[in-house]
């Protein structure tokens, strides 16, 4: 349901110039970016060097999978798995445009086939299995491909005993795949249950935004759950709540810090500290004799 929010955000994105500037980072010559939170004007090179975090107010910009790999994993350690799995418009779903067309557009715009990449990598020399969702691909929505790849990276963890780390960023289930998108929640959660019974560490890093069916499945099942500051994390998003229930949303509602206060996550960690934090957590959860 809370994919509503993804759309709400999408609309806001379209409206708010300040946020749209983020996209322009990739355009050569566009050297300045305005922080959407504090309006500070940031030099884009500096911003990239500071993990895409505003130096003034610590606003965490949404980042691409490549940027995340760059910031968090040992150099050149990432090996992508199951790269070729492709989505299918099996319902012939057509809203304002056919799902098939949406997919082609999204694939052309990004260089990805769907909203997640998975692979093996190292963090400070420790082998890990990694999944990174891509909000820039159809709002990171979870259809069959996302569900399958999440499941496979977990199954790979079961084989290799590597800890599994998933970076979530998703508006929820992909409606265009109907009931089968809902079933991905059960499928991924069941895989995590197997991983869990083998006592292999599973860590989730909740990034902005993590909502709907994604939050209500693999995102919330980490042995340890950390969030980036200020991330929107919810099942039903603020807009749905306001519309449906006519309740006024309190400030800070459903942001990382709110979830921390309400007992849902273990900690909020600044992006610059994420790598060493993950390294520390893994080295504690994995018994010495099991370390490879």
């Amino acid at each position, binding site marked *: 349901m809370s994919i509503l929010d993804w759309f709400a955000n999408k609309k806001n994105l379209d409206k708010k110039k300040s946020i749209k500037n983020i996209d322009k980072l990739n355009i050569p010559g566009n050297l300045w970016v305005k922080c959407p939170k504090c309006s500070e004007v940031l030099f884009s090179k500096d911003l990239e060097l500071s993990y895409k975090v505003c130096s003034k107010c610590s606003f965490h910009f949404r980042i691409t999978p490549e940027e995340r790999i760059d910031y968090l994993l040992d150099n050149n350690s990432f090996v992508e798995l199951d790269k070729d799995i492709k989505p299918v418009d099996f319902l012939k779903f057509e809203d304002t445009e056919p799902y098939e067309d949406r997919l082609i557009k999204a694939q052309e715009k990004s260089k990805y086939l769907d909203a997640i990449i998975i692979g093996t990598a190292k963090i400070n020399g420790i082998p890990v299995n990694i999944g990174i969702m891509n909000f820039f691909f159809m709002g990171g929505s979870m259809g069959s491909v996302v569900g399958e790849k999440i499941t496979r990276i977990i199954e790979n963890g079961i084989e290799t005993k590597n800890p599994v780390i998933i970076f979530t960023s998703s508006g929820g289930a992909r409606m265009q795949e109907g009931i*089968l998108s809902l079933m991905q929640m059960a499928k991924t959660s069941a895989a995590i249950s197997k991983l869990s019974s083998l006592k292999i560490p599973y860590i989730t890093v909740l990034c902005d935004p993590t909502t709907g069916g994604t939050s209500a499945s693999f995102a919330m099942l980490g042995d340890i759950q950390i969030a980036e500051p200020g991330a929107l994390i919810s*099942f039903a998003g603020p807009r749905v709540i306001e519309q449906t*229930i006519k309740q006024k949303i309190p400030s800070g509602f459903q942001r990382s810090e709110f979830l921390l206060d309400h007992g849902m996550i273990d900690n909020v960690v600044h992006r610059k500290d994420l790598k060493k934090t993950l390294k520390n957590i893994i080295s504690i959860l994995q018994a010495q004799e099991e370390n490879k």
Partner: protein
Amino acid sequence: MAKSLEFERPLLELYDKIEQLKGLSNGNDNLADEITQIEKRAEKMRKEIYSNLTPNQIIQIARHPNRPDSLSLARLICDNFFTLHGDRVYRDDPSIIGGIGFVKKSRVMLIGHQKGHGTKENIYRNFGMPHPEGYRKALRLMKLAEKFGIPIITLIDTPGAFPGIEAEQRGQAEAIARNLKEMSDISVPIISFVIGEGGSGGALAIGVSNKMYMLEYSVYSVISPEGCASILFRDAKKADIASLNLKITAKDVLKLGVIDEIIKEPLGGAHNSWKKVASTIKRQITKDLNEFNVQSEQEIKDQRYNKFRQMGRFTS
């Protein structure tokens, strides 16, 4: 039939006529023939209407205010049904009910979403939309059942999770996620029936089962057609076309491999005879439990896992 559905109106007019004629006839044989004829016509019309229902019409039946609710079905299905309450943490959520009883000689734990039939009861039951404590109660009861080797029956009937501040604050995402994870590893059989609305995560949260059935006029969907319409079609009034696209009827969901079978309803819908619905469900439960009886815990878990493992369509 206390409340009539729009598309049934021509049918109801016929019935009215029959009643009138019967009143007039008063044992008069002249009218008897005509009455019989109209009755036949009505029966034919009824079958026609009910064999050509649109998804939108099916939703209306699924949401019918007199559709049998979980608690009433539980009492019709089970002997000695004893309700169990509470999540042991925060609250007893009235929108999910649970309890133990016997189906014939088999012990069962029955859990279901609970809607009301009137406004007051619906407000109390939050229209069948659980708060996190509802899912947590359900999970507690499932774990209790697992401990004592009691098979689990779940009845699914919810518009979905509740989009409210408190439900979010108390972590409904976490609660649903945890249920999905834990249910996948439960060692007793879980048999689920969508008896009305199977609405998104709120439905799935008690639906990770070995066997999954839908009543003939129930629906199961990732999102309500209204929600989908307002997002994807940018027009909440396009629920009709959204419901077509989403493929939410029992027949569609069966084709997609998400359910095992469709449970026939009495003609005109489940609200016409709760007892018949209950006895059909009861028969299915008995049949399934006999099958599961010869399976090991591991087989039961594997069957459930594998079923969900292969859900999804993609190419590579």
